[in-house]
Structures are given as structure tokens and as C-alpha cells.
């Protein structure tokens, strides 16, 4: 009898400690998950942001960050990057109150940029004609000439990201002055290869429409290009946003390979999930010079908002090659300070008992971390029933911030 009693005591103590340890481990897991998620997201985004470029070194990569592009005929400005979505943007609307809009979650940012994937530039044989429909171009491309014209033709299709059925990837033409246009080769536009031309190097013939209504154009329209003109290949337009999945209610970092298009990405099917439990993405633009005297070089922060300078929806303006850029133009941005806020899965009962999820402290005095923290110009969500309190929830949250210079705008530094 005594032996049995001792056994019960030993097992009871051991089991209670084991359960406690399990709760501790679970609590630690919830504590670490948002930190790991936020840092992973920061690492992932860093790769694209630090290397953003349109290979237009003459003009310091003017289209590395894409805020606007023109579309249609005549061209209409389309916004591709946003600050603090609120549902009032053209084509946008709130879909789930206090949670998300068509473009992304309320209060989060959208950013579109060009990232190099397999960058290369090929000279367009002079004289470069004007822009228009059915324009003919010859490019100095000899990637497959060591084998045959057929191999050269195939190599050119590969270099330009030909999808095999309809068209090439979105490319660029840039000229000696840094002027640029988007460029795309249709299926029928791929001409013939002529490796034998080693005098004028008109090795690949292409026919393409440089003013198509369906082809993006620089904001405010294209400038005429002057020789020498180069075809830029191996760059990828990529867009990032945060959107809560209506299927499972989990906020996710999403990316699209292409320019953000408000008419289709609402929410559309082009965005794919990259990371779960990312609940906020904030972009602060870092200028080389103070756009407004005395207010510093960091904008869209807790203290400086581009809306005060007249920027539509808080995103920097983008004049494009035909207009004069203003002091806050995106081409004057040399760095990005971006913040990712992540959250854990909902805390289990055991983990809840080991932390202060039931806080009723005001925002000014709270020691609880169970609410989404402020990030740049996206403030803490407040409890509508107790306006001094943050909107406490049953998640752990963590904000990771990274500041990166745009390497291709700060070369040599």
C-alpha cells in the first residue's frame, strides 16, 4: 500500500512537471515563431530590394522601384505601389471590415520593383527608329552563333524569356541618355538569326509594337530613344503585398511575378503565398536629400508622411523619362527601410496561462506584447470599446526592420 502511494506521488509530481515543461516549450515556440517568420520575410525581401535595378546605369536605375506605369491608349497612369491601403484607392474597396481590402490588408503597403534574374544587355543596331506599331529591330545577339543560326535563335528566345506560345517576358529598352521603355516581343515577332553578319552585327531580327495599348509604358509616356539603344533582358518585375486569406483567416506575405495591376490583382490569382502569419509590410523611402527642408530623408515613417507633400495614397510620385521629377520622386530614393510584422499562431490554452494575454492596460503603460505593434506610419490598432487600450489578441507579435541601400543606385559606396 505504501509502495503504491509512493508510486502515485512520484508519478504525479513527474507528470505535473512534464506538463508544465510542455506548456513552457509551447510558450517558447509561440514566442519564437513570429521572430523567425519576420526575419525570414526580411531576408527574403532583402534579396530583391537590395538588388533592385532596371540595368539603366546611366540614369541610376530609374525604374528599379515601380510606383506608376502607363497602360492603354492613350496611356492612363496605373499605380503599382501603395502606402497604407485603406480601400479608397482607385479600383480598391474594403472586403472584410477592419481586416482587408481587395489589394491587400488594411494599413499595409504594396511594393513593386524590378529584380535582376539573369541580367544582360544587347545593342540594338543603329539607327533606332521611332516608337510605334510593328517596329523592326536588329539586336547584336550571338549567344548561340558558335553552333548555328538555329541555336542562336533558340538562345535569343531563352534570353528574352519567351513563354513558348504567346510572347517574351517583359523587357526594357534603354538608351544612352537613360531614357527607357517597356518592351515585349510577340510570338510572331521573333524573326531570323543571321550569325554571318559580323560587320553591323544585325544578328537577330525582331518585330514588336512599342506603343501597344496592352504594353506598359513609362509614367507620363515614353521619350524617344537615341542611339545607342540596348535591349535589357533577364529582369523580373515583382510585387509584394500582405493579404489575409479568407479561407483560413491567416495573413500572408504574397508575391506576384509581374507589375501590380489594380484591375486584376483585386485580389486576383496572380499573387502566390510566400509566408504565413505575416500581418504587416511597411516601406519607408530613404532619400539622398531632404525632399522637404528640415524634415529628414526618411519618409512614410511615424513622423514623415508623403501624403503631406501631395503624393497620391502616400506612395512617392514617379515622373518617368518625359517629365521633371519632383523632390520626392521615387528615382531619388537611395534606400528602403522596410518592416515586417509577423504573428504566431493563436496561443494554446497552456501557453496563454504563461503570458499576459488578458491585459487591460492602456497603450501608454502596457507591458503586454499581444497586439500588433506600430510600424512606421501604421499605428497600433486600438480597442474600439476601450479607446486607450490596444486591440489585444491571442497572438505573439514581432516586428523586424531592415534598412537597405539600393545597391544599383549607390554604386561605389
Amino acid at each position, binding site marked *: 500500500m*505504501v*509502495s503504491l502511494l*509512493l*508510486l502515485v506521488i*512520484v508519478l504525479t509530481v*513527474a507528470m505535473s*512537471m*512534464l506538463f508544465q*515543461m510542455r506548456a*513552457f*516549450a509551447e510558450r*517558447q515556440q509561440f514566442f*519564437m515563431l513570429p*521572430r523567425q517568420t519576420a*526575419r525570414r520575410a526580411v531576408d527574403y525581401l532583402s534579396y530583391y530590394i537590395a538588388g533592385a535595378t532596371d540595368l539603366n546605369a546611366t540614369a541610376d536605375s530609374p525604374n528599379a522601384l515601380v510606383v506608376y506605369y502607363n497602360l492603354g491608349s492613350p496611356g492612363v497612369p496605373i499605380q503599382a505601389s501603395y502606402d497604407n491601403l485603406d480601400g479608397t484607392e482607385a479600383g480598391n474597396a474594403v472586403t472584410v471590415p477592419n481586416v482587408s481590402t481587395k489589394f491587400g490588408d488594411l494599413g499595409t503597403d504594396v511594393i513593386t520593383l524590378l529584380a535582376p534574374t539573369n541580367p544582360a544587355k544587347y545593342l540594338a543596331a543603329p539607327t533606332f527608329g521611332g516608337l510605334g506599331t510593328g517596329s523592326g529591330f536588329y539586336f547584336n545577339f550571338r549567344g548561340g552563333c558558335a553552333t548555328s543560326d538555329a541555336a542562336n535563335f533558340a538562345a535569343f528566345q531563352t534570353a528574352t524569356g519567351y513563354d513558348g506560345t504567346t510572347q517574351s517576358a517583359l523587357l526594357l529598352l534603354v538608351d544612352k541618355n537613360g531614357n527607357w521603355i517597356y518592351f515585349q516581343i510577340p510570338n510572331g515577332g521573333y524573326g531570323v538569326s543571321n550569325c554571318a553578319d559580323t560587320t553591323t552585327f544585325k544578328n537577330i531580327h525582331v518585330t514588336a509594337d512599342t506603343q501597344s495599348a496592352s504594353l506598359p509604358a513609362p509614367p507620363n509616356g515614353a521619350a524617344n530613344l537615341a542611339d545607342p539603344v540596348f535591349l535589357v533582358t533577364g529582369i523580373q518585375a515583382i510585387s509584394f503585398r500582405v493579404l489575409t486569406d479568407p479561407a483560413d483567416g491567416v495573413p500572408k506575405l504574397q508575391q506576384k511575378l509581374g507589375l501590380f495591376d489594380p484591375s486584376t490583382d483585386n485580389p486576383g490569382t496572380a499573387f502566390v503565398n510566400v509566408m504565413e502569419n505575416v500581418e504587416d509590410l511597411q516601406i519607408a523611402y*530613404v532619400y*539622398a*536629400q*531632404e525632399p522637404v527642408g528640415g524634415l*529628414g*530623408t*526618411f519618409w512614410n*515613417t*511615424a*513622423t514623415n508622411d508623403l501624403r503631406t507633400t501631395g503624393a497620391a495614397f502616400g506612395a512617392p510620385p514617379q515622373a518617368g523619362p518625359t517629365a521633371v521629377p519632383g523632390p520626392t520622386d521615387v528615382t531619388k530614393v*537611395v*534606400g528602403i*527601410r522596410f*518592416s515586417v510584422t509577423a504573428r504566431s499562431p493563436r496561443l494554446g490554452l497552456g501557453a496563454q496561462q504563461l503570458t499576459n494575454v488578458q491585459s487591460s492596460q492602456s497603450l501608454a503603460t502596457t507591458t503586454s506584447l499581444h497586439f500588433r*505593434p*506600430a510600424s512606421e506610419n501604421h499605428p497600433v490598432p486600438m480597442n474600439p470599446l476601450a479607446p486607450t487600450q490596444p486591440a489585444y489578441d491571442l497572438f505573439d507579435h514581432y*516586428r*523586424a*526592420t*531592415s*534598412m*537597405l*541601400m539600393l545597391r544599383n543606385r*549607390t554604386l561605389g*559606396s
Partner: protein
Amino acid sequence: MGDGVKHLFSRPRARGSSFVEVLLAMTIMALVLVGILQMFSVSLVINKGSAARTQMLFRCQQVVENFRFFYYLQRNPPAVPPPLLTDLAHVSGAAMTVPGTLPIPLSEVAQTFLPYTSADATWPYWGPTGSNVIEQDSGPYKISYTIKQDPAQNVWVITVSAIPTDVATATRYFGVGLTSGKRVDYVAQFQ
């Protein structure tokens, strides 16, 4: 009394463990359980230490990136580095007078700590509403930096170090103290 009943009463005594044997077995089991439980707590502490080190490393990287930005602006006039961080009167080889500032022109800097509390002068830049390198007032880590010249390679060597806080009243890493060896040094070279 029949044979059957006799057999029942004459059955040999059942073999089993004595009280002392059971007690001994329990003691061994308790000791083993304590060892196993200790394994959990040790892994918890190790895990926390690893998390602390990761966080500190991440912050050090961010400090260097901010330095890179600062000196890019300084070298590309008319760009203006953040005045909050600029110290034009720094004496080469000395620590910065104001924590978190940087010398112009670039010169050697003895160990200087970034701001640690919201009362420090450069807090608006390094704190949570700025670069978020220092995430909270009196947080679990302190960050310092030194700048030295390497004449052989003609580069500036910036070393950013993060250590767990030694302030008793501060928010601290669980199980990670100054003597834990959880120090992170991050070195970068500037031209």
C-alpha cells in the same frame, strides 16, 4: 478438511518485492525523471540563448547597414547625412561624445554604445520609431561599435558588438547573462 483445502493453505508464500526493493526502485526512477526533466529545462535555456544570439546578430547587421547609408550620403554631396547622427568635432581614436553619432570625416572611434534608453540623444534615430535597431527602452541587449583604420588594405574596419544587458532592472533574456558568452561581433569593411 479435504486434500484440496489443505493444499490451499499449504501453498508456498508468493514471491514478490520487499518494501526496501520498491523504495529503491522508486528512488532510481525519481532520479532518472529528474535528469530527464533537467534535459528539458537545459534545452529551453539553450534555445533561448540561441534566439538571443540570432536577434543580436540581426541588429548588428542593421547597424552596419545604417552606417553604410550615413557614409554614402556623406560622400555624395549635396546629400545630407542625418544631422542627429553627425559629429563634426570628433577626435580620432576617442569614443563618440554622444552615443550613436558618427564622425565626419570618417575617423577612428573607440568603443561607443548606441542609445539604450529613450532619454538618450540619438534615440529617435535608433529607437523603435526610427530604424528599430534598439527595439525597446532598457531592452535585453546593448550595442556598441568601434571604427579602426586598416592602412594595409586601405579600408575602415567597423566592428559592431552586441552583448546581453547588465542592467538588473532591464528586460533581460531568460537565462542569458553577461557571463553566458552570448556576445555577437559583426565586422564590416568600408572603403
